[in-house]
């Protein structure tokens, strides 16, 4: 049972113990640097240990700081240097919480891995194949951040709180007297502190360049940004209005000339989402190329209708234009006929 010290994994562990499983708790120590939220602070380890004690299960701490740095932090920094906007939580889930941890627990002789994510693992027509399903609580559903998990992981995965609403989880925690019952949800990227922010974190690791904001239609320079590497496609914040008084949105970032191109909302929208061909993953069935799917482009974004096109230049053709999605962002693919079911994922190129 992967225990972050938060309320979801605490209750998940309690439910497994209650169901009679032989449970061992493990907390991953991921980020060695300073942190003010997220999953790695020492107090969270204390919380996880205390809950394990209350439940009468063994608890271990795995120090994965080196692997986290190599698989999550360095690629995050490098992606920003190249002007992409990665999602480090997804990479952490992919490489550490699942790949590395599943490997490790198999060697240690455990048969199942459980986490406190709000999603479900179920069965559909094929009883031998595990399918990933949206969590019961639409506001807390985390199927998006698990959408890249392969069948090999899903087939040994337990998500004990996926059928509960968050309020029910908190109520169970309170009933059980778990110390994490009233702990606030973790929010942001665990290795970025609220004081330094993303800019402060990156400024210590790569050179950030100021850039000009240029209105594509008129060629006018509308202003400056402190760091072009931190500008995201479709971004509105900090951009201001054009000469016509209309809001402007980022349509293109040119790192070589340190130019941020902006335009009206229509110019920052597209019906096409191009995907990196090497990034496509499936939860166990062949992806339905040429067919309609439901896609989600952020953790709690709205489900969108699209057609998935395969080939050398895979892409999604959305039913309606949507705000541009930054390269590096993950797209979760859901079954149009059975929209709870995750089919797989891709990454915007």
């Amino acid at each position, binding site marked *: 049972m992967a225990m972050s010290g938060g309320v979801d994994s605490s209750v998940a562990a309690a439910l497994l113990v209650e169901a009679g499983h032989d449970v*061992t708790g493990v*907390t991953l*120590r991921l980020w060695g640097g300073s942190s003010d939220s997220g999953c790695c602070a*020492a107090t969270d*380890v*204390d919380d996880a*240990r205390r809950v394990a004690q209350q439940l009468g299960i*063994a608890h*271990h*701490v*795995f*120090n994965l700081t080196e692997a986290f740095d190599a698989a999550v932090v360095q690629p995050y920094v490098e992606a920003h240097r190249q002007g992409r906007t990665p999602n480090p939580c997804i990479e952490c889930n992919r490489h550490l919480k699942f790949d590395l941890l599943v490997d*490790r627990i*198999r*060697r*240690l*002789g455990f048969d199942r891995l459980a986490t406190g994510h709000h999603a479900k693992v179920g069965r559909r027509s094929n009883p031998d194949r595990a399918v990933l399903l949206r969590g019961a609580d639409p506001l807390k559903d985390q199927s998006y951040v698990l959408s890249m998990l392969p069948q090999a992981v899903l087939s040994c995965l337990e998500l004990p709180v996926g059928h509960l609403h968050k309020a029910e989880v908190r109520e169970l925690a309170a009933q059980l007297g778990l110390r994490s019952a009233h702990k606030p949800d973790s929010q942001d990227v665990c290795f970025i502190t609220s004081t330094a922010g993303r800019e402060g974190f990156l400024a210590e690791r790569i050179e950030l360049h100021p850039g000009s904001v240029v209105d594509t239609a008129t060629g006018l320079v509308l202003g400056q940004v402190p760091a072009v590497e931190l500008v995201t496609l479709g971004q509105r914040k900090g951009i201001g209005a054009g000469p016509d008084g209309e809001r402007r949105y980022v349509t293109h970032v040119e790192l070589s000339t340190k130019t941020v191109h902006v335009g009206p909302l229509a110019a920052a929208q597209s019906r096409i989402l191009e995907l990196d061909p090497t990034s496509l993953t499936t939860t166990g069935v062949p992806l339905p190329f040429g067919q309609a799917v439901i896609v989600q482009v952020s953790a709690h974004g709205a489900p969108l209708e699209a057609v998935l096109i395969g080939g050398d230049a895979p892409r999604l053709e959305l039913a309606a234009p949507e705000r541009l999605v930054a390269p590096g962002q993950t797209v979760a693919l859901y079954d149009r006929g059975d929209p709870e079911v995750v089919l797989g994922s891709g990454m915007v190129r």
Partner: protein
Amino acid sequence: MVVAYLDHAAATSVRPEVLEAVGPLLDTLAANPTATHAEGRAARHVLDDAREEVAELCGAIPGGVVFTGGGTEADNLAVTGVVRACGIEAPQVLVSAIEHKAVLEPAQHLARRGEAELALLGVNGEGLVDLHALAASLGPSTALVSVMTANNELGTIQPIVQIAAAIANRAPHAVLHTDAVQAAPWLDLCTAARGADLVTLSGHKLGGLKGVGALVLRRRVPLEPLIVGGAQELGLRSGTQDVLSAVSLAVALRCAVADRDHEVERVRALRRELWQRLEHDLGAQVHQTVPSAPSLPGHLHLSVLGVDAEELLVALDRAGVCASGGSSCASGALEANHVLEAIALPPSLRRGAVRLTLGRTTTQGEVEAGARAIVEVVRQLSTA
């Protein structure tokens, strides 16, 4: 269920003699040992007996024992206390690269604050301090040299007598401190740590209680206290004394000294057997970190090739074997190990490094069961 407890260097069980000595005192010693009335004097008497006993067993000046809240505090008092009281401008502190964090951290803290200049003494592949480098580093500004009597992870025993001789030659004003927390259960500190001016002890490594330690004074060394107040403990550690804990340390040390010759032989033979069994069954997959340097009888530090120490410890725990991966941080996670770095253990060996430590309660049956479980676990992790 515990099959084999092989973590005596982390903590060993309380000796029955300690329980016998301390138990009755819980009821009877109510008074504050600094009080002047009869009850207070009685408590003070018990405390001073404990102090005198430790002093005699460790070759201290009469009454020259400061009871502390543990080995870490005694180390901190030695390092910080000497530097702040030495009167040398820009005092230099020399400590071995494989000291316990209880010595390294205060030394680094002083260096960061500009109160001292810190130099780390290198060690060889088995953790022995480089005496030439030591001699070359000593000078008029040297205020403190701190080298542990035996290393907590490797068990390697340092040549304290030779280190003391080098200091006497080149920097006679300098203070030699030795952390003898690990050595105390096994070595006669009057000989093994002869020449050290300050010696650190810890209760729970000896079979006393946790939360008590002592700094032993072999001569009158200027020391600035870390904790000030009522000037208890020779004025070096204020606060009402914990008489029972002090008694536990003194009784544990007395018993360790009485049993020593016999126990050293017995435990050394068990360690040899444990190693032979592992080597026999696992062959070249296991590698002994300190095969030839003098080492404590209970320490078996080894590396298992192709296995990750963190996984090995969890698997051993599940198999009922209590072992240690060296130093762990407060969260319980294994950290990059400065001792293994200092001895330049290759990364392939560092990855699978574990410390097995035997002690007073270790039996032949425990060694056999422990070896079997370790072999099984290593095979499971290696094939999976």
